[in-house]
């Protein structure tokens, strides 16, 4: 029957139209300060992927405190990739629901950390409190802004950097604990993420010093004016290695494995590394980008989490798990 053939053809066409209209969409669940980085990178990657495959890719971004973001993925947020502040938060996707394999960090170069950063201080113009190093932050009358280590990866880097500074300067973990306790007595507000703390310090005008991601401090200078703030580089800081991975369980379900993998690999490309440097992250693998942005970053003595704290698993258990040192020293 002609009519029936026509109808069947209509259904086929409709189904075909629905299939061809599919747009590849990725969700990148990241931590707080990477908004600007990934806005620029996503645009570059979409152009790269279009040229390479002809497909259109739209990458949606979700930002928040790193630990909180990992929890959101575990609770069902369909992240194709996570680009979190620290490997310890990504590890949570292994232990809670096996979203990724245990050896996820070996799948990409440089332990899956395409860029690095560190922790510096942002103070108000003229440095009215004379902040020079970590020990100035524990002095009476100094108001310190830092996020909550329970929810923010950046805050954990801050906490551990302060701890290691005190351990080296004053000798031993007990002294370090006393120092960190004194420092957190000077913290009037605990935001859940680094971007919230930036708002507290920069826009709300609270505090004398902001313990900040290096890139976040540079961004504040760039956006709000070098005449309003200054960066103070401490004598010692931590090598922060934000890590990235494809969320296997999600991409297999959504059929986005190839594009998600390509997305993260592109972070290691010359363009990806250049974009990282341009957004005040330290390029990890490209020698060209490293050389280009070398003078942008201050020279600091950096220690690693593995060397000082035996890796993230141990550091999280000792300091940030329920009953850890943070719970012992901080009373809201």
């Amino acid at each position, binding site marked *: *029957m002609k*009519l*029936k053939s026509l*109808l*069947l053809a*209509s*259904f086929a066409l*409709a189904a075909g139209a*629905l299939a061809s209209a599919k747009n590849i969409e990725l969700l990148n669940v990241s931590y707080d300060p990477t908004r600007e980085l990934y806005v620029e990178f996503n645009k570059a990657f979409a152009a790269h992927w279009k040229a390479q495959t002809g497909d259109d890719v739209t990458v949606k971004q979700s930002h928040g405190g790193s630990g909180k973001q990992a929890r959101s993925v575990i609770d069902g947020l369909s992240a194709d990739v996570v680009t979190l502040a620290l490997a310890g938060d990504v590890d949570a996707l292994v232990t809670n629901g096996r979203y990724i394999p245990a050896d996820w960090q070996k799948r990409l170069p440089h332990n899956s950390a395409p860029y690095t950063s560190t922790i510096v201080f942002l103070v108000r113009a003229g440095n009215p409190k004379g902040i020079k190093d970590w020990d100035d932050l524990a002095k009476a009358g100094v*108001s310190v802004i830092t996020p909550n280590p329970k929810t923010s990866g950046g805050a954990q880097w801050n906490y551990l950097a302060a701890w290691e500074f005190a351990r080296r300067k004053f000798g031993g973990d007990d002294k370090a604990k006393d120092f960190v306790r004194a420092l957190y007595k000077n913290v*009037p*507000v605990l*935001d*859940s993420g680094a971007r*919230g703390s930036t708002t*507290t310090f920069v826009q*709300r*005008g*609270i*505090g004398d010093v902001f313990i900040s991601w290096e890139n976040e401090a540079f961004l504040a200078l760039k956006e709000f004016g070098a005449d309003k703030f200054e960066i103070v580089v401490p004598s010692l800081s931590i090598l922060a290695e934000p890590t990235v991975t494809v969320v296997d369980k999600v991409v297999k379900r959504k059929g986005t494995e190839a594009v998600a993998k390509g997305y993260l690999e592109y972070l290691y490309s010359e363009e990806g590394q250049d974009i990282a440097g341009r957004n005040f992250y330290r390029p990890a693998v490209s020698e060209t980008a490293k050389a280009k942005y070398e003078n942008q970053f201050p020279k600091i003595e950096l220690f690693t989490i593995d060397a000082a704290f035996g890796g993230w698993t141990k550091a999280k258990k000792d300091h940030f798990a329920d009953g850890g040192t943070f719970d012992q020293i901080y009373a809201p």
Partner: protein
Amino acid sequence: MRTILLRKSAPALLALLALPAALPADEVSALREQLRQLEQKILILERKQELKDETAKAAPKPVTVAASDGRIEITSGDGATSLRLRGLVQGDYRWYDSANDANDTFILRRARLIFEGKFNNLFSYVVQPELAGTIQILDANLNVAFSPQVNLRVGKFKTPVGLEQLQSDPVAFFNERSVATNLTPNRDVGLALHGDVLNKTVNYTVALLNGVPDGGNNVTGAADFDSDKSVAARVFATPFVNDKDSLLNGLGVGFAISAGDYATTAGRTGGYRTDGQQTFFSYDSSVVAAGKGFTWSPQGYYYNGPLGILAEYVGSSIEVQRPTFGVREVKNFGYNLTVGYVLTGESASYRGVTPKTVFNPAAGTWGAFELVGRVSGLDVDDTVFAGPAASRLANPNTSATKLTAYGVGLNWYLSRSVRANFNLFQNKFDLAPGAAPAANALIADDETTFISRLQVSF
């Protein structure tokens, strides 16, 4: 809070501004530092409140359970997932004139539990079992809403042809749909592409189905009897629906068709019933559908305030066969014109009437009342009676060739969920030439029927 605190601080601030001339510089400096610290405290309090508000805003909203008019709905905090439990119970008393009074009866006409749900903002479903009469699954379908313009429904659902057939049972003007509905296919199994286009002024449906005959229903959701599928398509326009001030805001016009190749077992071509639900026409029990079938229906409605008008015309042709005789094409026609007026002033619509008050004698409120009237008819192809008894398709002594049905009624909306209906029908039969029905046959004389109903629909 900041304003209040600064207002409280204002006298101190003014005093401070006046002090420099009177106080030593170090005291001024100390006071300025105190003021700075005071401001910091205010800012910190404000920021803490801000964070508290942000946390409260970002917190996942709890699951809500809502109940109104007997209906229960459970909805996830984000609104993406919900389950709605509804029900419909109709209890009738049917009274017939003296010629048919043996049929007087109480009857449980419908008893349904309806499960409706949605999830992922994309999928929705309906499962509706019928527990009165023949127990069956009336509707069981999944709808995928790609967009308001493109939806795909799969499962068992109403065939998109008859306007009155597509109207929900509990909101129809009369207890029983008009005799024209005898000619429109009812529920079937298949899939349908549907949606609203042109700024929601046009609704379209195109369906591919197993195929059911006139007035038929795929009761069991069974597999297709033959391998041929039928198609149904309907376009319905409400061109002034977006113009709330237009007199034609409630106007809707449409056209629907269904077509297919049908082959059925004996008797599946079914019979046609009066408004009183008695069969006035049936094919010989050996007659089967054996070829092409085609139904077409221009249709429309108009609602304006308490006034409602619904009209449709249905044309049907189907190829049928009495075994050992040739295939014959039968053409039947039906029509329906229904008018309703809500006496208490509520607005009428295709989706029913919502009373402004509920029945509560103590409070002096009585709900809403609606008067309804209908003229409908069904004209059966005279050729079905042609030929000798051994070869004709229908018996002229038990089946009429034409029915003209008149109905009037009063609908009493006791609440949004409870309705009482009182319908009086007068059915006039035209007989085939030479017909000689028995004195007690239904078609021997006009049928007068009074049907009352109490309905709970939530």
